[in-house]
């Protein structure tokens, strides 16, 4: 065994150290799932730059630090976290360092929808969730998803029954409060046939030291369902954030997602969307980073069946000596005739040291398809700056406005006004701070 593999193995052992203390679940399949995940962690290694999927994203810094699962949870008051609340989203589950905080949550089982922690959901939903929990995410070849699954305990569970359309957005708020802690946020969203729901998955921090968030989200849309998924990664400046999200979009369902990444020293988001016949998805993203941040987004949209539609617009605004990575795979399988797929990746570099690696990847095995994709990397357009100056705005004001606009185009797609406003303010502050 080479030295690096040893370091690697002990690192994972270390991370797993807290695992045996988890209480066993009353569900045998859940215990089996965890055990399987522990096995996979044993068999897998932490990725390095030599792995194709990680070639632009150096996480050696993460492996040099040691993190432990939370030992004692800090008890927070509403006043501590109120500023993260989203006005419209009155149904809320709060997790503090990965641990469910019932006193801060307003779980709902009214209007037919269930929003609760997994344990409370066992009785009513065990059978419904078994086909999805730990099955949508391919943890067998993904060490971070395997680790998360090994620790699978507190889990945000949303079950929307058949033909129920939920008006009130659900806010899943994950709050980091302690340094050196690793947390394993987990979400499962099950939208039954003909249902509709909007979910905000939100990562925030109350402290600025290093910690590690390793999250997994699984979303299943049964036929004719609609899910709006808004993901906000606003972790602390020294945080590590690695997240995997797997979405299964069944026949004629519609998955709309906007994900924004502002925080963390190093972040990685893997989003896999699998489209069935006549399914549709819009997968939009914005990474706005500066300083020495690294934000990596890997998406895979899998057109598995005919006549599905996918639209993707991913943008990065990179300042300082920050580094953004985008890898956008679109797969059109042999069976997926009449696929309609659009992908666009646009990157704005604000400084000469800012850096972007982008890799759109189209893999098409069907012949009757409409696929377009494009990637651009650039500075602000001089003609655009001039246009605004000719209207009286200073060079700085013009650049701020254009940078803001670049990001706002994505934020605008968030269907919740107060969150949209909040995030627009963040973009405004970030972009004017950079110039």
């Amino acid at each position, binding site marked *: 065994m080479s030295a690096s593999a040893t370091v690697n193995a002990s690192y994972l052992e270390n991370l797993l150290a807290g695992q045996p203390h988890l209480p066993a679940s009353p569900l045998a399949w859940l215990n089996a799932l965890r055990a399987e995940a522990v096995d996979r962690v044993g068999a897998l290694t932490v990725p390095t730059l030599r792995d194709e999927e990680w070639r632009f994203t150096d996480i050696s810094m993460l492996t040099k630090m040691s993190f432990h699962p939370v030992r004692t949870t800090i008890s927070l008051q509403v006043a501590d976290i109120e500023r993260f609340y989203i006005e419209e989203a009155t149904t809320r589950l709060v997790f503090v360092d990965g641990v469910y905080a019932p006193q801060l949550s307003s779980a709902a089982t009214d209007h037919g929808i269930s929003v609760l922690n997994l344990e409370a959901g066992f009785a009513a939903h065990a059978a419904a969730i078994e086909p999805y929990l730990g099955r949508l995410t391919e943890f067998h070849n993904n060490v971070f998803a395997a680790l998360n699954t090994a620790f699978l305990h507190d889990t945000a569970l949303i079950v929307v029954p058949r033909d129920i359309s939920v008006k009130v957005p659900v806010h899943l708020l994950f709050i980091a409060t302690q340094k050196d802690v690793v947390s394993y946020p987990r979400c499962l969203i099950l939208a039954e046939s003909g249902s509709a729901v909007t979910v905000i998955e939100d990562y925030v921090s109350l402290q600025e030291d290093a910690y590690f968030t390793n999250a997994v989200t699984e979303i299943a849309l049964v036929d004719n369902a609609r899910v709006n998924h808004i993901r906000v990664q606003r972790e602390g400046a020294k945080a590590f954030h690695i997240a995997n999200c797997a979405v299964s979009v069944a026949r004629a369902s519609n998955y709309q997602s906007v994900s924004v990444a502002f925080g963390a020293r190093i972040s990685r988001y893997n989003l896999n969307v699998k489209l069935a016949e006549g399914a549709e998805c819009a997968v939009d993203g914005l990474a706005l980073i500066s300083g020495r941040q690294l934000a990596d987004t890997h998406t895979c949209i899998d057109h598995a069946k005919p006549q599905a539609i996918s639209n993707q617009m991913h943008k990065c605004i990179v300042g300082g000596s920050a580094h953004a990575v985008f890898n956008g795979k679109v797969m059109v399988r042999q069976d997926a005739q009449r696929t309609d797929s659009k992908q666009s990746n646009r990157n704005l570099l604000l400084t000469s040291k800012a850096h972007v690696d982008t890799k759109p990847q189209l893999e098409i095995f069907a012949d009757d398809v409409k696929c377009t994709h494009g990637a651009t990397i650039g500075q602000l*357009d*001089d*003609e*655009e700056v*001039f*246009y*605004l*100056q*000719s*209207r*009286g*705005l*200073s*060079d700085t*004001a*013009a650049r701020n*406005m*254009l940078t*803001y*606009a*670049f*990001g*706002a*185009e994505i*934020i*605008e797609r968030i269907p919740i006004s107060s969150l949209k406003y909040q995030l627009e303010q963040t973009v405004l502050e970030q972009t004017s701070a950079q110039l």
Partner: protein
Amino acid sequence: MIHQDSKVLLEVSGLCANVNGTEILKGLNLTVRSGEIHAIMGPNGSGKSTFSKILAGHSAYEVTGGTVMFEGQDLLELAPEERARAGVFLAFQYPIEIPGVGNSQFLRLTYNTVQTHRGKEELDPLEFDDFVREKMKLLEMSPDFLERSVNEGFSGGEKKRNEILQMAMLDPRLAILDETDSGLDIDALRVVAGGVNQLANKDNAIVLVTHYQRLLNYIVPDYVHVMEAGRIIKTGGKELALELESRGYDWVGVEHKAAMGAQA
């Protein structure tokens, strides 16, 4: 309207300019007094847009000779935004789109910025809304255009209206309209021209850049200039536009060369 005693707004003499090392303007002279409407006509590529952008302060063009005085100050010394605040306005041939910025937000920011620099009151969002809606009526624009992103998805004609709307708001002393007529159907042309006519007064001046005579049926110029290869080679009254329409531009160049030859 020509009044020989009205004051000179713009005095361009011997203006020469390069872009990427190529000389585009080669000794351009033009005097514009307040109250006047000028038309600059000329074939594609003669340098009309270059001249317009130089007046507005575009940094891609390097002025290599000549002077431009605006109300007695050296215009070339000013940054583009200072020119705008001083009262120079360019309606672009190709207005840009700014997805992500609401048109009303943009209009209000530019309006308030310019007002502040002119020592005037800013308007709050509500006051501005009334103000801009009033101006939009002038151009028969639907208030819906306030809700949309700046020029995003606007048709060619809608973009041009949005340009003239900005002119109406910013109340310039000197407005340069670069091909504002191109891309307009006849109804839109009538509306836009009507708006421009209402904005023209004895204290400001308008320079229309066009290569069609059509616009000049609606906005009647006091002077028509013919531009060729980076120079104004002939100046006449509004009837010159009609002559250009029927005879084309070539004869003007021939006449000009002959005149230059006779001089030498």
